[in-house]
């Protein structure tokens, strides 16, 4: 705000990761040097996979703390403030991986303000690594600037890489990295002078992404099970499993809207993907507009000759016509079914369809619900459907639901110069199944509130995570079994997990771990309930939404069902100007990108209600 009249004293990012569960606190302190009050803005970007858990502002010694409330209720409660434009909190999309949280407050002359934002996320293993992404843009050099990350991984840290988009040769040595077997400490704390673009300049070099990438030592067979505080989490990604051959049908949209860059990038990506096919894989190409045109009538083994033929065909890919997704996908399904029936495909192999489209179906069946129904019924749980939504015109939620109904997942492909890389990257993630129909089992009488424990596939470079609550706090050994179908044999392991003594693993640490396993479990459960609330039966959707809401409130997570509400100090005209932070869904992000600004709004003090029961009670209990 008003450059020169606001001094940013400190910007600190403190990230603690314990067994992939990251807890990040961003703090910023500024002084209004002006002789009159002025609006000071706090804008930060956080990963879209993270949930905000806390936000507070300290102004003139008064702390204003955020509270997580039910989104719909908060909206209704503050409709009036919303309609009169008294809203302040805003969450916006910021690129592909981040979303922006911004607030502004009026700060009196010569006064300080401190903003603290906390968010949490479960880091996902992709292509063999976890990534912690911190985006920093302090705009001017800051007296105290610090990024600190402490990573605690009881499995042991296999490698750790740190880089930042703004790291020059001068700044690079300032990144301190201390890695021991199970712990890593990373810090970056340039002085004000080191931050400057030139010795007497006001500009700062610090502007961009600070990225930490690491992996843990993979535990063989059973995986790694951690039992802490009555909750357990099971990480499963054993090393050295042979990949399972796949039978993949690429269903490619070549309709008119794909013209220009999109069709060129699709062509380019397909050529690279075809090159990467393993010889034991089978593949097919089906192009579609209003017509469906298979390259061949059945799948072909990925021999050098067949791949070369396919590449020649891909070179000829041209855009034309309308979009008939229904018939194209159904054709892919029937091709796989027929080839299976004719025993042209190996017994132990995985069937998958990869659909790439950029638009809404407008030819043949165009009712989205009906298409989902047709596809689900044709697939019948026998293959996986992965969908790539190219650009902003496609209805992403339609693809997302359709994939999830069919053991797959969807991904948005952003229209940009790197779209080819995005397409390839997604393919790389899903192209190496190691196991299929993976079941992780625990004794019914020992665990409850288990997160999803059946997975259609385990892909190379990814990780399966299951968490749950133990019914017995004193449990020393938890019996665990994992079943799956591998390339040559069935995968079956059994073993016992025991609670580790964290005091022994990290003897020099204070008790920092608290309830991270419980929060990890809650985060995972909420994510899965939110998925279920989109793709389950009507009853399941209602129940999943209600449960996800209850847990979001209980664990103070800002999810798409809740809002973080902070009452700001009164402005000079005596009005309260509350602010609210929401969590965007992928659909909302897409809408926002289409130009529909997503403004979220308002609210004031919230009174908790408690149903008093008669007669009176008098009690004493723990604090």
């Amino acid at each position, binding site marked *: 705000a008003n450059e020169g009249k606001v001094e940013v004293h400190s910007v600190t990012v403190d990230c603690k990761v314990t067994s992939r569960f990251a807890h990040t606190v961003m703090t910023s302190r500024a002084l209004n040097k002006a002789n009159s009050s002025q609006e000071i803005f706090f804008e930060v970007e956080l990963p879209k996979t993270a949930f905000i858990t806390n936000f507070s502002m300290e102004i003139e010694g008064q702390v204003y703390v955020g509270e997580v409330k039910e989104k719909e209720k908060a909206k209704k409660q503050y409709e009036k403030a919303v309609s009169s434009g008294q809203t302040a909190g805003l969450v916006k999309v910021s690129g592909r991986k981040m979303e922006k949280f911004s607030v502004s407050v009026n700060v009196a002359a010569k006064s300080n303000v401190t903003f603290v934002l906390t968010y949490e996320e479960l880091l996902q293993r992709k292509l063999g690594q976890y990534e912690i992404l911190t985006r920093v843009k302090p705009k001017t050099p800051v007296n105290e600037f610090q990024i600190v990350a402490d990573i605690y991984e009881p499995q042991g840290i296999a490698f750790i890489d740190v880089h930042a988009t703004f790291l020059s040769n001068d700044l690079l040595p300032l990144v301190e990295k201390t890695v021991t077997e199970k712990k890593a400490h990373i810090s970056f704390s340039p002085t004000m002078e080191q931050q400057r673009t030139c010795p007497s300049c006001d500009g700062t070099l610090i502007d961009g992404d600070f990225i930490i990438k690491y992996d843990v030592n993979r535990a063989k067979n059973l995986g790694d099970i951690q039992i802490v505080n009555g909750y357990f989490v099971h990480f499963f990604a054993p090393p050295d499993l042979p990949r399972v051959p796949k039978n993949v049908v690429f269903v490619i949209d070549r309709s008119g809207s794909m013209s220009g860059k999109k069709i060129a990038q699709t062509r380019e990506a397909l050529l690279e993907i075809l090159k990467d096919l393993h010889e034991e894989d089978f593949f097919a190409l089906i192009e579609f507009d209003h017509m469906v045109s298979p390259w061949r009538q059945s799948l072909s083994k990925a021999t050098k000759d067949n791949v070369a033929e396919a590449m020649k065909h891909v070179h000829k890919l041209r855009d034309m016509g309308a979009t008939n997704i229904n018939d194209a996908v159904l054709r892919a399904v029937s091709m796989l079914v027929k080839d299976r029936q004719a025993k042209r495909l190996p017994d132990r192999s995985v069937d998958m369809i990869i659909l790439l489209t950029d638009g809404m179906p407008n030819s043949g069946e165009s009712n989205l619900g009906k298409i989902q129904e047709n596809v689900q019924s044709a697939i019948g749980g026998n293959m996986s459907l992965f969908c790539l939504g190219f650009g902003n015109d496609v209805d992403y939620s339609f693809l997302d639901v359709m994939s999830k109904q069919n053991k797959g997942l969807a991904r948005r492909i952003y229209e940009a110069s790197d779209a080819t890389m995005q397409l390839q990257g997604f393919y790389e993630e899903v192209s190496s199944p190691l196991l299929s129909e993976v079941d992780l089992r625990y004794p019914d009488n020992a665990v409850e509130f288990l997160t999803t424990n059946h997975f259609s596939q385990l892909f190379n470079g990814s990780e399966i995570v299951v968490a749950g609550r133990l019914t017995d*706090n*004193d449990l020393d050994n938890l019996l665990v079994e994992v079943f799956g179908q591998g390339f040559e044999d069935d995968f079956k392991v059994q073993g016992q997990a025991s609670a580790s003594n*964290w005091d022994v693993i990290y003897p020099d640490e204070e008790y920092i771990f608290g309830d991270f396993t419980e929060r990890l479990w809650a985060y995972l459960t909420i994510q899965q309930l939110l998925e279920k609330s989109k793709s389950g039966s009507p009853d399941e959707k209602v129940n999943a939404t209600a449960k996800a809401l209850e847990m979001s409130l209980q664990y103070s997570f800002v999810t798409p069902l809740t809002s973080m509400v902070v009452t700001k100090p009164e402005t000079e005209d005596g009005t309260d100007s509350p602010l609210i932070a929401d969590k965007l869904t992928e659909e909302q992000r897409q809408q926002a990108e289409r130009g529909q600004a997503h403004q979220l709004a308002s609210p004031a*003090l919230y009174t908790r209600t408690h149903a008093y029961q008669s007669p*009176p*009670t*008098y009690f004493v*209990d723990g*604090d």
Partner: protein
Amino acid sequence: PHFMIELPDRGDALCFNINDKPGTIFTLVRDPESGILVNGQIIGDKKIPPDGKINTYFWRFGIIHQTLGVRLEVSTREISVFQDGKRVKLLWSDTASLKGPNVDLLVTKDRSLTVTLKDSVKFVILLHKVWEKHPYHRDYLGFYTLDSHLLSPSVHGLLGQFYHGIEYEVTDLRPGEVPEKPDATMYVKGQELNVTRGWQRDFRRDVKNGENVPCWFIHSNGTGLIDGDETDYIVSGLF
């Protein structure tokens, strides 16, 4: 431990904390007329937490009903009932009920013990099980009076003194240290106290998370609200 006095007639509640050295035994209820006594002993965390705040909790209660000749000792480990020279031991790990002429007990596995003493008092003791390997915390107990209307007017103790109601007024609501917790002035027992609006938790329906109950918090170990100070309630033995 946190104490809570719920006053449904007023739609309000009062609360305070009592802390002392681990090992201290407090009298919670003493009714000389009916011969009822409830004492509780506190323990602390396994070691001092990083914030340096020592938390104490009840881990053992001794309950006597002299007239009925019943004595109960309830700890986080086990439950013992002594009557007519006999001892019955119950475990928290079993669901069990015991119905006698003077006393009814109901143990809900790893969760609660409901005690009904004939024609006098009904209460429930909650077991809070903490992860065994937790570096700081350990198991503790909560004590909830469910029915006390048959006790005599002379009943006393840290909880007992409130069984027949309490008169108080709260005025002068003003901003506190945090916006959600305003301060106010409370007039009670002829004194003027600075109190703070806050919440404490009732764990009866949800033993893990509890439910927040808004209440007026009386600072400094309930000074001004309780008769005397907390040291007046310290006793040397559980019975």
